[in-house]
């Protein structure tokens, strides 16, 4: 931290806003999480770090200071004002199992998760799907179709990912606001069905 960042008014949440909600945008490496959040966010996306502590195996200098070793995990996030009283935050989280501590913080209070998958690399989505399920987050699958990706029948994808029949699958171009918003809406409608 060098100095206090100076923000313009638009950086702040509108003063009438009473509460915030959170959705996780997750997926394997380079699947389009940062792109998706940048497309949807009304503020320039921010990045922050969580520091994770682990019992020190080989104690180094830093380890001596704190008796623990630390690693940091970066997460991207963006903001979307929903209406006068509500803002929605989108958090992008990497899907590696070793980041469980961060997942704990990120998933707490989240409405649900949008899992971005690359249809050409489906098996890379397994670890992140395991995490989402482990933390009990309801989710929808957004198939991020990169240029030139051939169409793949939904059924094949459902089977490959071992989805429940009710889990929504939607195609999405993370660079396109309408398409990205549509996948979020599909997730929300699914969440609505789960609380009836």
């Amino acid at each position, binding site marked *: 931290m060098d100095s206090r960042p100076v923000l313009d008014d638009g950086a702040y949440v509108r*003063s009438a806003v009473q509460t915030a909600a959170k959705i996780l945008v997750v997926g394997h490496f380079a699947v389009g999480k940062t792109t998706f959040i940048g497309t949807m966010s009304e503020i320039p996306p921010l990045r922050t770090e969580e520091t994770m502590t682990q019992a020190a195996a080989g104690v180094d200098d830093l380890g001596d200071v704190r008796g623990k070793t630390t690693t940091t995990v970066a997460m991207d996030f963006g903001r*979307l004002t929903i*209406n006068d009283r509500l803002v929605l935050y989108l958090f992008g989280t990497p899907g590696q199992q070793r980041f469980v501590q961060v997942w704990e913080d990120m998933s707490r209070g989240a*409405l649900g998760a949008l899992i971005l998958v690359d249809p050409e690399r489906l098996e890379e989505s397994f670890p992140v799907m395991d995490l989402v399920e482990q933390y009990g987050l309801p989710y929808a699958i957004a198939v991020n179709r990169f240029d030139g990706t051939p169409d793949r029948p939904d059924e094949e994808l459902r089977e490959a990912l071992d989805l429940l029949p009710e889990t929504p699958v939607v195609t999405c171009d993370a660079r396109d606001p309408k398409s990205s918003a549509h996948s979020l*809406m599909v997730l929300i409608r699914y969440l609505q069905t789960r609380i009836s």
Partner: protein
Amino acid sequence: MIDPGEQEPEAAELVRPYVITDGRVLPEDDRFSLITLVTASADHEQRMARLSPEKRAVLELCGGGYLSVAEIAGHMRLPVGVVKILLSDLADGGYLVTRAPAPRATLVDRQLLQEVLDGLQARFG
């Protein structure tokens, strides 16, 4: 704004946050989640003299309006855990006003989900 493609910092750079928090390790503090909205209380400016530079910087930042804990960390370029410690102390001193996040989906009224849906629809149609 930090370039999202930026490298993760080397471990050595983590020393500074521990100095800022007087070497304290994170208490599991449920007062602040990533999306708790925080602003400075109306009278905070009269009582800033004895605060550390970091706490003053936090107050100045969130004196302009509400920001989430995650946004404060992002703008200050500090890890979330460190920011939570600073915020806890400031809250204890009565320097902050907070707005709690919405409860999660299973407990939530349908209204919240409907609002999110309508809001997205209105903006991206």
